[in-house]
């Protein structure tokens, strides 16, 4: 399953903090770095190519329907 933007960003954040903690050995540091750069690219792409999400409304019958604000 495709990673969600939020999860990917959270993971990226975790990797950056882990790397900067300085407790990582060189080999795994480079692995983590590679992974982090991938995540950063993935997040950027997701963020900047994302189409608008449709707004939903909960109906009386407890169902979600598309929602547009009536002007």
């Amino acid at each position, binding site marked *: 399953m495709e990673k969600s933007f939020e999860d990917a960003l959270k993971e990226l954040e975790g990797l950056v903090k882990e790397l900067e903690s300085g407790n990582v050995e060189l080999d795994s*540091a480079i692995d983590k*770095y590679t992974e982090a750069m991938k995540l950063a690219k993935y997040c950027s792409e997701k963020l900047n190519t994302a189409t608008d999400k449709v707004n939903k409304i909960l109906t009386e019958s407890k169902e979600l329907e598309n929602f547009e604000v009536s002007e």
Partner: protein
Amino acid sequence: MDMNKYLKISDLNMYIKTMFDDNPYLKKVYLRGEISNFKSHSRGHLYFTLKDDTSRISAVMFYSSAVAIKFAPEDGMNVLVEGRISCYPLQGTYQIYVDKMEPDGLGNLYLEFEKLKEKLAKEGLFDSKYKKAIPKIPKRVGIITAPTGAAIRDILSTIKRRFPITETILFPALVQGEYAKEDIVKQIKEADSGKYDLDVLIIGRGGGSIEDLWAFNEECVARAIFDARVPIISAVGHEVDFTIADFVADMRAPTPTGAAEMAVPTVNEINNMINSYEIRINEFISNLIHKNKLRLDNILDSFILKNPLSLYELKEQALDNYIDTLNNYISKKLDNYKLILNNLESSFVLNNPMSLFDLKKERLIYTEKSLDTNINNIIIKNTHSYQILLNTLKLVNPLGILDKGYSLVTKDNIIVKNASNICENDIINIRLHKGKLKAEVREVNYE
């Protein structure tokens, strides 16, 4: 003169009092008016006049009812009262006996607001320790407000403008009027049910009068907000409007637009964040590589690795040292033994074996000599002792005394010392210095 037609005042007043008391319309009367001549008696009863534009009525509120009022009545205050109308016979006045009194109009709402705020604050519903953090990047935002109007429009357009990939779910609710509080509570519970996987919930409405906003000052709404697990941003009315919901929510936004801004970041912010992450890890990794390279270079630069022969040289020298030490040790040992041998070889005894013999001989001679001397000494000593003993013997010889004229009488070879041992005619022997006599005893004298 018929005095009987004159009534006692007290009787009249009592009669009038029953007229009031029996009238069903006057048993419960609601009045709206302004307080004047307000007087609080030291025993706790309140006396005042209620008036409107044209008329006035005396009012009394006894202590038992007055303790229940939640505000400080004063002259000029508009109030709503509930009571009965009766007569005070002692003064012949009618008045309203007030059971309940509340401030009129907006003052009333304000009072309720203050009361509830105080109560909930005391319970800790506003404590910062209960405030949940609003996530930086929500996947899905819930909104409880009216499905029409400025509030929902502002919220959705702001989210779209800032962070379009956020999903929104509107939980439509009445936000003013009698049923608003129940509707809001119902939708809060629905949104918080866990079915919608919300990261944050915005509750609010656009601006309006204090009455319009009142649903957000209701206790049930406050408690529903407090009980919700999802972080809640409140956005009720305008900047200046503060509701109970604002105090109890995890975050208060000044307006619905403000709530949307708090709920989602902007794409730019997140882009910058991702960029800064990239920069940070790039810097970090190049630093790390640089650091490790330096370390490696240092090691490669070390003298030993650059001059491998020096390792060998060092060992060579050490070997020489060991050999020298070993040689020294062995030659020292040899010298030592040689010296001992030399000493032995040059010893007197080995060189003059006869000396051993001479020594024994000398000893023998000496022994012989000392033996002779000892024997002579013993002979001389013994000869001398013998002479002494002989002389002593001479001195003690019992016969020796006879030469001085004493004689020795014996009878049957027993020396006679006492005349009583002798009887007349006994034969006794007498020994003299020279010769012996045999005699017969003529007389015995016992003395």
